[in-house]
């Protein structure tokens, strides 16, 4: 069953009771919440996602709930619970849904160590993946969203999951997290795409979530070979330019952006080295999305190669 097949009352009822088992890529997240705002946004943004049969296996058990205490009558807050633990400080109740999104990212980046997990946007065209590793504020999510609206398949706007065995990327197509000016920029390019209402005054400023394309959600089981690793930097007023980067330098940058590179030790070194081997590496500086997209559309993938570990 898909989330969109549940009526608002059914979805709200299940969230408030046993929870829903939401499949996102290779993970099942059991989500519970009594809050209307969580049910409404799940219905809006996750309509195409599979809702597994209740009481099966779930990788992560989370709840988005109001804390107890008198404060809730004056300044209502919300907690993210993971296995009935509270890993974060509460946030204002109006930020319940972004908190759920950030919490789910945290669950994966802190626990799914069967993958090398990169902080990266990942999109696919013609059977090969473009990896956009970058720290926050680089324009990675904006470019990822713009590429998806333009027709590239979304694997993730935030987490690149690299398979340790074959180096392929596992999809995790979830709503795309847009911040501040990017919200209007992407809305303008995608007038028919569904967005959440903006959530104001979060730690990242104003954020809004873009519903992932149905095709990306339906193809969440299709892993992809990486072809390009591109460091993105948004530079106001700059003409778009794509320059080759040495693979050693790119290796270090991607390792810096990975959540669990150190934890995986020599395995992480091997997995990342094989990925860099297989990819062409570039720096992309841009200010106008159309120029950047045209450059990325024109890229030819490298032919598959073997690793050069020593």
């Amino acid at each position, binding site marked *: 069953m898909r989330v969109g097949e549940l009526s608002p009352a059914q979805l709200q009822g299940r969230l408030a009771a046993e929870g829903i088992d939401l499949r996102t890529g290779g993970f099942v997240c059991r989500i519970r919440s009594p809050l209307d705002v969580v049910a409404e946004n799940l219905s809006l943004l996750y309509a195409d996602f599979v809702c597994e049969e209740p009481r099966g296996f779930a990788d992560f058990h989370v709840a988005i709930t109001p804390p107890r205490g008198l404060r809730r009558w004056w300044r209502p807050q919300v907690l993210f619970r993971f296995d009935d633990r509270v890993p974060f400080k509460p946030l204002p109740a109006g930020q319940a849904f972004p908190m759920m999104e950030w919490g789910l990212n945290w669950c994966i980046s802190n626990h799914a160590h069967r993958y090398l997990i990169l902080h990266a946007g990942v999109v696919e065209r013609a059977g090969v993946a473009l990896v956009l590793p970058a720290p926050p504020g680089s324009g990675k999510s904006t470019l990822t969203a713009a590429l998806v609206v333009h027709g590239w398949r979304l694997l993730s706007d935030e987490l690149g999951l690299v398979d340790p065995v074959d180096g392929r990327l596992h999809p995790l197509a979830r709503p795309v997290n847009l911040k501040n000016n990017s919200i209007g920029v992407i809305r303008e390019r995608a007038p028919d795409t569904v967005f959440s209402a903006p959530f104001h005054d979060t730690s990242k400023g104003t954020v809004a979530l873009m519903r992932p394309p149905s095709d990306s959600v339906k193809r969440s089981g299709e892993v992809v070979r990486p072809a390009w690793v591109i460091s993105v930097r948004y530079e106001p007023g700059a003409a778009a330019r794509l320059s080759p980067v040495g693979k050693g330098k790119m290796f*270090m940058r991607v390792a810096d952006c990975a959540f669990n590179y150190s934890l995986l030790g020599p395995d992480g070194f091997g997995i990342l080295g094989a990925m860099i081997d297989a990819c062409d590496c570039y720096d992309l500086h841009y200010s106008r999305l159309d120029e950047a997209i045209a450059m990325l559309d024109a890229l030819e993938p490298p032919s598959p190669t073997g690793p050069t570990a*020593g």
Partner: protein
Amino acid sequence: MKRSGSWRVNAGFDLLWHSWGDEHVVYHCGSGDTHLLDAAATGLLRYLREARVATMDDLSLPVAAALGMPADEALEYTGNLLEELERLSLVEPNPR
């Protein structure tokens, strides 16, 4: 600058490599650190790994040949490289 004694690759831990042209990354299995090295540092480290132990003079000769440097300049350059590699715990003075 390091001038005296002999040198060896840091004992007891493996080093893992990936190489692309003149750029090399090395993973130190003891510290868990990864370092980006240029061709000169990599050449010195690989030479030392193969030779097991080498003096500054031993090491500066191939450096001079590879980089086309006069002997005294190569000696200083090699000393600085060794200092840097020692700081990264990749090489250490040979105790014997």
